[in-house]
């Protein structure tokens, strides 16, 4: 089966040339890159709102644009819903009428979507009375109600506080999974990519650099520089096992991490992000220490930095971690590739995101 989204485009919009090539198959694909590299331009080109110079746009095997074959489906017939940054709810219509604007699904179905998105009680309100987060939700439901072949969200989390951001990321994931509509999530924030996406496309000024599963994109050499992140950290997929003493244990194979219990249901899937600077190393398992997570790993690689080292670690069943240590520690421990060490991670240093309940 072909990938859900298959894009190869070359463009020259408003004096700015650019090109992009990627395909994506996951529920949510992050289009990530610094501000001003042309992410929104690319979204408009895919949706058909701007015209590329050449290339193709295919969604679920259907060709919507192909310069070689002379195919160019009008934007309004493409079935690609683009939610802009400012939501662009129609100010002259109620929330309900906004959602109904292009809806192809029954009223009952709309009501279900709205409930799911937590906007069921807002249906009779006017857009100007909504908060930023509510407006985003309405805009997303309005787009999903048209049963699009592809949903593109342009920086949907901008301007929201951390709690709303998390809720919205969960909503995006849930809707993508439930509706089966592939989502392209435009963002410049690595957290959004790590927590909301399965695949990612990295974009540099006017070109795409790489694409693939987020772990791959995260590990790409240009990612850290482009996104101006010093410590990308590592990403672990885990399932909630048991709970005890205000802690939950999250497992990936035989590797397990203890985290503060925030009421996550047992068996739910989590995505954990551990920063390199939050991982200490020890040559032996420690006793009498408050650090709960001591994970036995093998040193898979060592990268020198201006004032220290980044140590790549791997557990016996393939979970990857990164530890950032100083030059002094590196020398004192006399570390080298292939050594077995214990990665020490404080439970409270792990950032988590509920992927599937």
């Amino acid at each position, binding site marked *: 089966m072909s990938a859900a989204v298959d894009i190869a485009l070359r463009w020259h919009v408003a004096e700015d040339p650019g090109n992009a090539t990627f395909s994506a198959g996951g529920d949510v694909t992050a289009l990530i890159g610094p501000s001003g590299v042309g992410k929104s331009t690319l979204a408009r080109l895919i949706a058909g*709102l701007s015209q590329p110079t050449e290339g193709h746009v295919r969604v679920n095997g259907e060709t919507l644009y192909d310069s070689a074959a002379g195919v160019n489906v009008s*934007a309004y017939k493409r079935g690609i819903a683009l939610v*802009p940054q400012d939501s*662009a709810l*129609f100010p*002259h219509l109620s929330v309900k009428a906004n959602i109904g*604007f*292009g809806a192809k699904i029954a009223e009952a179905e709309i009501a279900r979507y709205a409930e799911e998105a937590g906007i069921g009680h807002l249906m009779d309100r*006017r857009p100007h009375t909504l908060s930023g987060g509510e407006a985003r939700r309405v805009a997303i439901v*309005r787009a999903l109600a048209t049963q699009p072949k592809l949903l593109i969200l342009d920086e949907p989390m901008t301007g929201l506080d951390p709690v709303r951001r998390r809720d919205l990321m969960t909503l995006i994931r849930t809707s993508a999974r439930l509706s089966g509509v592939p989502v392209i999530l435009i963002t410049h924030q690595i957290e959004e990519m790590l927590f909301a996406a399965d695949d990612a496309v990295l974009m540099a000024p006017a070109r795409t650099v790489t694409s693939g599963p987020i772990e791959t994109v995260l590990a790409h050499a240009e990612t850290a520089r482009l996104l101006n992140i010093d410590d990308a950290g590592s990403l672990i997929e885990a399932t909630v096992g048991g709970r005890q003493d205000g802690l939950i244990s999250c497992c990936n194979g035989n590797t397990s991490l203890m985290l503060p219990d925030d009421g996550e249901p047992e068996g739910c899937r989590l995505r954990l992000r551990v920063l390199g600077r939050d991982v200490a190393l020890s040559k032996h398992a420690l006793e009498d220490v408050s650090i709960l997570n001591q994970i036995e790993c093998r040193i898979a690689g060592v990268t020198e930095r201006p004032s220290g080292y980044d140590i790549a670690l791997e557990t016996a069943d393939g979970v990857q971690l990164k530890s950032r240590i100083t030059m002094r520690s590196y020398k004192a421990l006399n570390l080298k590739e292939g050594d077995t060490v214990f990665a020490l991670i404080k439970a409270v240093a792990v950032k988590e995101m509920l992927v599937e309940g």
Partner: protein
Amino acid sequence: MLSDFESAALALSFKVAVTATLAGLPVALFAAFMLARWRFPGKTILDVLLHIPLVVPPVVVGYLLLIAFAPTGAFGGWLQAHGLSPAFKWQGAALASGIMALPLMIRSIRQAFEAESPAFGDVATTLGAGPWRRFYAVSLPLAWPGILSGAVLGFARAIGEFGATITFAANIPGLTQTLPLALYSAAQSPGGEAAAARLALLSLIPALLSLLISETLSRRARKKRGLA
């Protein structure tokens, strides 16, 4: 309260101005949308042509209409033969005042179309709306306050029209004699000062009424969108 002469002039004025506004509105909407949104060769020339009634003396517009509809011409002759010639009829007064009102309506409506953020049209497109639906379901309602004030401006201009009307439709009591023409006649006739003063006061009624209605409607529309 009103003499037959006065109420006839008032009623005729209303008929002429309402017809001029209603008939001019679709033309103004189309022209305003074209000027605000489309790019085409000759746009500047069209823009200038549509503004001519605003800048040339109204008598000139009336005179040009006379020539265009002259029974000796092909078009005027054909209309005459079928009994459709508007010259010296109330329809002629409506045509003359409609043309005089057109540029004001176009200007106001065009500004409203230009003020609309392109994001709304784009979003409507990706939600599956074609050009026609984008026009009537998005642009038109969003421009509603501007269209309203354009219509009121046009109505006020039409009801006060003098030069083009008197030139093209003449000053026939009960037939083409609108309020301004009646006022003019009264002021010209000896001993008509009192009648002229009454007609002048009478002219205020439609003007104030239309302003009041438009202000109320426009305020309501703005309030609904959180703009007031």
